[in-house]
């Protein structure tokens, strides 16, 4: 599949599953074209990664608008710094690191503005990953609200690591790279985060 065809196919949201099919050679080709300042290639990269970038940002920030802004800022940073990417690591981990930093910036801005740390904005519809009945959909929506509320009460570092591991399913090595810490730290922080989430859910009466 050529890059152009892939771009056209991935324009719609329903093609998120195809993200995994995008092979590393195509990705490398796109990055090299971006380094040559090819905006069309950048557009393809955005389409390729927007789903996970947005969802990671949403998981950390818990707010649709903020997540969208952070994701777009992250892509802009990628464009501005793409020449610094030397293929020493995976592009995805480099990108997620930028996303995490953008989210931290948003959280800092919130603290300065003294707004609520997590305003739950669950207005976005669910992804229909499988066929569900309306009752199941309602239950799932309720569960998501509770889970979002619990996540929102966690420390930012716990939220980030849970999103990277549970939502994006990154390996411990990849998480260590994104968070710029050791494997041991990932292991212990993930345990603390899971325990904190469990306690928080029990408090909300999950």
């Amino acid at each position, binding site marked *: 599949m050529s890059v152009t065809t892939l771009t056209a196919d991935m324009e719609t949201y329903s093609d998120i599953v195809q993200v995994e099919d995008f092979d590393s050679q195509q990705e490398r080709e796109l990055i090299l074209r971006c380094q040559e300042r090819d905006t069309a290639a950048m557009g393809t990269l955005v389409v390729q990664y*927007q789903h996970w970038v*947005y*969802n990671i940002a949403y998981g950390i920030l818990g707010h649709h608008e903020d997540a969208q802004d952070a994701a777009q800022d992250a*892509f802009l940073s990628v464009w501005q710094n793409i*020449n610094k990417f030397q293929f020493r690591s995976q592009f995805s981990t480099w990108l997620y690191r930028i996303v995490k930093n953008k989210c931290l910036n948003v959280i800092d801005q919130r603290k300065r503005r003294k707004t609520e740390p997590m305003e739950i904005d669950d207005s976005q519809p669910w992804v229909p990953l499988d066929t569900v009945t309306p009752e199941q959909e309602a239950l*799932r929506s309720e569960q998501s609200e509770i889970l979002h509320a619990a996540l929102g009460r966690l420390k930012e570092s716990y939220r980030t690591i849970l999103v990277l591991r549970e939502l994006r399913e990154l390996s*411990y090595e990849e998480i260590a790279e994104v968070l710029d810490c050791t494997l041991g730290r990932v*292991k212990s922080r993930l345990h603390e985060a899971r325990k904190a989430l469990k306690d928080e859910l029990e408090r909300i009466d999950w």
Partner: protein
Amino acid sequence: MKHQRIQKQLSAYLDNELAPAMHKQVDDHLRDCQECADMLADFKQNRQQISQLVHPAPSMKNAVLAMIRETESTPQNKLLAIFRRWIFRPFTVGATAFSTVCFVFAFFIFTYSPAPQYDELLDFYFGVHTEEVTNNPLKSNVATPLSNPTTFTEDMNEDTETLLNLYLGE
């Protein structure tokens, strides 16, 4: 004590990140400890719930490309972009590093003056004395200050005069 230690490993156990020996220890512990078994079950359930927290991402391609066009539309940013492209080229990096090394080397070559070497102790004292007299306006008749003795005498206080006389043996 063992219970606490094993409990801390539950998360890594869930992710299959433990060494085989430790994995077996946790397995054995889980058979006897209901608290840890419950915690592991909760971790599993929460993991499944979070993995389903996926929202449809809005299309960002046009917005991002518009932002890129906007940031690069000003002349300053255009120049900056050209400079960035240039500076990160391998040849540029190599040439810059080479020039810097050459510059530093040349700087040392042209500014280096070896310290005076004295063969004998007496040479050393003569050398030091010459430097001291040459650089000291109170002692030197080479430098300018003593060429205008009137001004000098006017500015001189008593202590300085006494010391100078003592030094000159008068």
